[in-house]
């Protein structure tokens, strides 16, 4: 066992930090309070991702033949950590490079790859993901948006909700129903958002302007060539995508950074003096570091090419525990952070509070741990 970073990894992280320090505008911390899906951040992300692309830092983990450098999962983790700690200046494009691109590389037709991969690699694309529906959140297989086959096209009708980036995205990674079979009746369509019949409504939100939307599909015509993979293959494709996002966002890293920031502010205000505040801060740090190590254990296995299973749910739940406690620490000891005093901490809070509900609710992770890690017999349905 070896818990040290290699020199190359350390240099990579340093390079990212230097680039961030050079590139981000002076008022970035205040600016980044807008959610990653806000119009302001989305516009900024296009310029920022262009810079990353020029420096070879947008898709360094992609295969060399597709413009990447084939860097291993440790580098990918370092990249994800540094970007998220910085407030994710890639905006919604982090999805592109982390899982939409890799999924297209695996399942896309030559035409689809030719059309969609270059803009992703150049930092010019913005996708939204059409997964959740009003009646179907954690239970994806219950989705009802229908794509009726009609010759060489589909006619799509239905509604998606909680869709981040939808207001500005150019393309939707749309999961929809092509037959009644619960799981094998689901297919994926790559739908340009300017297709007639698509209406987007922004949902006003606690966590930032433009962050979540409803998307209505009203007799939207999509050519069959826009289907990713086979009809009914969505369940498999999403499963593959998830292996690329199994750990999700490295929230433990921002949670720790926010904790350190909060402590430094408290110290400057002579308020990091009692036992209570110190002990509570230590509990937060223990949880962020436990989540970090649980996550690294998964990265290690990915780096070795081993199959990753349910253990990633354990790392994800550890991350939710850490996020929660850091959010609570700041609310209790630096309440002004949620007003206007400490934009970085407010940004953390806004992103942290959804840790337990975004990308697979915490309760789903617990179900997975119970069934697949602990091997407990299943609940009756």
């Amino acid at each position, binding site marked *: 066992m070896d818990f040290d970073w290699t020199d190359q990894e350390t240099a990579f992280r340093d390079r990212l930090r230097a680039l961030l320090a050079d590139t981000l505008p002076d008022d970035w911390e205040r600016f980044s309070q807008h959610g990653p899906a806000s119009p302001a951040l989305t516009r900024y992300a296009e310029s920022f991702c262009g810079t990353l692309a020029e420096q070879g830092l947008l898709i360094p983990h992609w295969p060399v033949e597709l413009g990447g450098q084939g860097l291993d999962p440790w580098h990918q983790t370092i990249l994800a950590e540094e970007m998220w700690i910085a407030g994710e200046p890639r905006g919604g494009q982090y999805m592109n490079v982390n899982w939409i691109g890799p999924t297209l590389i695996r399942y896309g037709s030559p035409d689809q790859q030719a059309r969609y991969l270059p803009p992703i690699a150049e930092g010019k694309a913005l996708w939204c993901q059409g997964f*959740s529906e009003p*009646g*179907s*959140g*954690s*239970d994806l297989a*219950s989705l009802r948006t229908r794509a009726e086959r009609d010759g060489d096209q589909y006619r799509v009708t239905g509604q998606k*909700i*909680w869709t981040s980036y939808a207001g500005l995205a150019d393309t939707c990674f749309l999961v929809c129903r092509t037959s009644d079979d619960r799981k094998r009746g689901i297919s994926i369509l790559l739908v340009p958002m300017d297709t007639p019949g698509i209406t987007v409504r922004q*949902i*006003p*939100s*606690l*966590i930032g302007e433009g962050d*979540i939307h409803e998307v209505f599909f009203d007799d939207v015509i999509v050519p069959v060539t826009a289907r990713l993979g086979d009809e009914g293959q969505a369940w498999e494709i999403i499963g593959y995508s998830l292996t690329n996002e199994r750990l999700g966002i490295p929230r433990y890293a921002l949670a720790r950074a926010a904790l350190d920031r909060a402590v430094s502010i408290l110290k400057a205000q002579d308020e990091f003096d*009692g036992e*209570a*505040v110190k002990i*509570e801060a230590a509990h937060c740090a223990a949880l962020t570091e436990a989540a970090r190590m649980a996550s690294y254990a998964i990265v290690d296995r990915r780096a070795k090419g081993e199959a990753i299973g349910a253990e990633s749910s354990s790392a994800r739940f550890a991350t939710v525990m850490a996020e*929660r406690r850091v959010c*609570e620490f700041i*609310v*209790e*000891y*630096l*309440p*002004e952070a*949620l*007003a*206007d*005093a400490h934009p970085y901490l*407010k940004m953390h*809070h806004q992103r942290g*509070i*959804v840790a*337990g*509900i975004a990308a697979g*609710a*915490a*309760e789903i992770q*617990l179900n997975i741990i119970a069934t697949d890690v602990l091997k407990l017999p299943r609940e009756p*349905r």
Partner: protein
Amino acid sequence: MDLSLTDDQVAILDAIDTLTRPYAGASLHEAGFALPDAQLDRDLAEGGFLDIGFDPDLGAVSAALVVERLARLPQTVEAAASALIRPLLGGDLPRPLCLVEEGRTTRPIRFLREGATVLLVGPSGVSTFTATAAQVRPEPEALYGYPMATLLTVPAERTLHAIPASEVLIRWRIALAAEAAGLLAAALDITVAHVTDRQQFGRPLATFQALRHRLAQAQVRANGVRWLALKAAATLDPGDAALAALHAQESARATVYDFHQFFGAMGVTLEHPLHLWTYRLKALVGDLRGRGGQGLAAAEALWG
């Protein structure tokens, strides 16, 4: 011991329910971060509901019951300090009454605005002043579910009140606990309604045992906070008050996460009112140095 409401208390709460019924049913679509309501405030003040603590026959328990009931509304009204602390200070101070702890004056303050009475309490005593526009920076982006502002300066000229700071702190803690009790009850109610209605995996969310048990624990906490607040209002004992506030802050922490968890993405929209209660609870968690502050005060009172 008699833990039923008196006839007077029943009548007061009934009158509040009648007065607030139109507000309780208001459309909350896009209610924004906070939901102040000047008309409701006027109605309550004119009805005398915020002055109940001045009546020695009714006293602090009745005032706490009023605070608890009003905290259940989606609209926010400065009731807690006015109903429970103003009686200590005399009746001619303009509302809202804003509580500030010495040494923590730069923190955002609930209900602070031009013309509000600011009550400063700490080791150097108890004093008040009327805030001017120049002293106040509104915080419209604060997430807390209350109208909030930051105090830019504390004027040297203030009205000194010849009451011990400890008396104010006892009532502040009771006010906090009574308000938290109402907020917890309302957040629990709306969450219960949501999970009963919301279907996942072909059945109401409310039928999933893990969620049921967590909501049941929230019920136990909300019930406990309410009783501790009322008991402290009856005894005005420093230990009882500190335990009530401690239990309120601890329970807010323990339950707010769950309420949002069970609301899922709906809980972060401004189209559903959950945040009007949960983010107010968050605002209360930091009062008087948080749980550590209440815990030390309780230990001093109980075992000092």
